[in-house]
């Protein structure tokens, strides 16, 4: 839905370009761009998703409940919420889970990355590059591409169904581990589907690397997790492109949230400036941690060790899709039965911090609990909320560059630039609509 309006006097009309409801993003939001005398004067990513007040109603709940409750913040990345909350509570209670549980968490998380990245790449983002309003319309001309995307997405969902019980709001995650571990036989049974998905993910990277990408070089700092080994997924310390590194427990000293009138999602800054989380940040800060296959494909697709063009995020998601499948197959092949599904996590009074890499970027959780395990304070910083100031920054640069285009084309391109971030608005409010105003 696009509205173009002229306000003010006729000599210097202020033009407003407005996308009332951004399509193909998760949740509800819009964009407002104001143009005065041919220059962009204001860009607002308007997030009007109604607030649901999770951090408020978590107070007074039991410390065991956040994995199930916070999963409901987002139907697209529930596992991210489950694992960030588990890590935070385990941190508060002084428990470190054994390696095999950490490994099974990685496997379930791979399922969520595969599902979420395939959804965004094929159903939400690719139609922009290939010139269709949506994937169903795209399927008329490119049935094989859409069918491949749906098969990849299904491979992720199948993995989540097995390990998590279901793909939207999995039921198998608890503090200290799982209720029930899948067996070697069950994991082996799903292996052929994942092996086929890996072949298709490789083909996907090759396909999306042929798209046309507008030039854009981001200058914001990048922030991602970095674990002791492997590509970041279910934990790690924070690292930034400025060369800083700090444990998750220090996130409140570096990341400051503030409220703006045009968004029900709080904005964030890193040491006072806008920053980026998500696939580009993860890739650029952890390129050396990719598997040889993923690294080789990234090179073949023309990516360097750092990627700062947000339009190429679709290639990076493809590389991460390959990485998630390689990792899932490795975990399945090395799995052995007969280990406990969880370890006890007895309550103790204190504060705990947890962060994991949701498909859209780092998700921070912090809780304060009392000695009976009742939650006194909860604090959640989702990836899309952190990316809002940089999304607006990208749009300011791009709208200025494309200001001479007609409003229709300008609106369309701005939408594409927003979808680069795969914004999850339901998450960020625990909130996109485009308006361009010209004067």
């Amino acid at each position, binding site marked *: 839905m696009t509205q173009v309006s002229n306000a003010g006097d006729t000599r210097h009309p202020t033009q407003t370009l407005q996308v009332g409801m951004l399509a193909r993003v998760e949740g509800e939001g819009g964009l407002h761009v104001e143009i005065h005398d041919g220059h962009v004067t204001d860009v607002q990513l308007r997030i009007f998703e109604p607030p649901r007040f999770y951090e408020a*109603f978590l107070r007074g709940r039991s410390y065991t409940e956040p994995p199930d409750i916070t999963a409901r913040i987002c139907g697209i990345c529930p596992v991210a919420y489950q694992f960030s909350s588990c890590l935070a509570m385990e941190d508060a209670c002084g428990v470190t889970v054994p390696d095999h549980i950490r490994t099974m968490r990685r496997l379930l998380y791979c399922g969520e990355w595969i599902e979420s990245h395939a959804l965004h790449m094929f159903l939400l983002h690719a139609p922009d590059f290939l010139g269709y309003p949506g994937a169903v319309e795209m399927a008329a001309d490119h049935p094989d591409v859409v069918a491949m995307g749906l098969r990849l997405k299904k491979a992720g969902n199948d993995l989540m169904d097995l390990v998590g019980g*279901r793909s939207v709001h999995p039921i198998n995650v608890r503090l200290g581990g799982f209720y029930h571990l899948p067996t070697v036989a069950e994991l082996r049974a799903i292996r052929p589907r994942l092996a086929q998905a890996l072949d298709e993910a490789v083909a996907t990277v090759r396909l999306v690397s042929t798209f046309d990408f507008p030039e854009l070089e981001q200058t914001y700092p990048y922030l991602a997790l970095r674990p002791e080994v492997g590509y970041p997924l279910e934990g790690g310390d924070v690292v930034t492109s400025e060369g800083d590194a700090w444990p998750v427990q220090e996130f409140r000293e570096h990341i400051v949230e503030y409220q703006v009138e045009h968004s029900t999602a709080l904005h964030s800054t890193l040491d006072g400036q806008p920053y980026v989380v998500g696939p580009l940040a993860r890739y650029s800060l952890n390129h050396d941690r990719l598997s040889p296959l993923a690294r080789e494909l990234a090179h073949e697709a023309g990516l360097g060790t750092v990627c700062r063009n947000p339009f190429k995020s679709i290639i990076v998601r493809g590389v991460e899709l390959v990485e998630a499948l390689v990792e899932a197959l490795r975990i399945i092949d090395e799995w052995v039965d007969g280990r406990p599904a969880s370890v006890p996590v007895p309550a103790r009074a204190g504060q705990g911090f947890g962060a994991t890499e949701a498909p859209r970027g780092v998700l921070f959780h912090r809780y304060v609990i009392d000695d009976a395990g009742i939650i006194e304070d909860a604090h959640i910083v989702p990836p899309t909320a952190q990316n809002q100031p940089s999304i607006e920054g990208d749009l300011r640069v791009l709208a200025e560059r494309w200001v001479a285009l007609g409003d229709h084309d300008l609106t369309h391109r701005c939408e594409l630039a927003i979808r680069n971030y795969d914004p999850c608005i339901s998450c960020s409010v625990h909130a996109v609509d485009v308006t361009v105003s010209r004067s």
Partner: protein
Amino acid sequence: MFDESLKSSALPKLAVWKFASCDGCQLSLLNCEEELLTVAGAVSIAYFPEATRGVVEGPYDVSLVEGSVTSPEEIERIGQIREMSKTLVTLGACATSGGIQALRNFADVAEFRSIVYAHPEYLSTLARSTPISAHVSVDFELRGCPIDKGQLLEVLAALVESRRPRIPTYSVCAECKRRGNVCVMVANGTPCLGPVTQAGCGALCPTYERGCYGCFGPQNTPNTAALSDQLVAAGMPPEVAMRVYRTFNAAAEPFRRESERQERAVAVAGKGAGR
């Protein structure tokens, strides 16, 4: 309800709407990977902003509505959607019972606002989160947090074929027996809401060795009091027995009543202890 044949028009026009929610129920439609293109061939997807920027103007034959009503603007919007829609189906716990955000119904929303936001005055929020049926007539309510995609496909098939959807209203226990699960409550003493919760998930939690937590909401005529007495007798403190009903379907009438009964028990116990 599902009469007035949609068959009359070549392809029924389908619209998908979102209110306060997590997107998970809409995602369940996109999760019908093997069936999605078939569904897209059997209906005309006229409005589905999460999937396409293409918009076909109303009126619509079928509106699928996700999410609960939590703001004054949403009350107005659901009225307009009802007027444009021949059949309106709600998807999931938020749209059907108010969702987890209905926990505000038991608290002071002004305090909630100030806990999360530095400038609560920027927000327009209602004191209560309410289901779609509190505002307009609803033709069918599909349960679940999230909905089950098999049940969603059944509802869509029923719409296209102009028949009633076959969605059972009995409890999770029936599904558990059918799967051959050992009862987690009887055998392991694990608290389980299966006896009072509507089927539809396939008894997922007990199959994974955990108790049901009621995400499909109350079954038809549940005996929640009898279940709570069992839970308390097995050692569950009343404040926990109160919380187990206050999750994703907290405002569904039988669950609301039972949680308030337990709340009174907590208050009485508190007085008895001289607190």
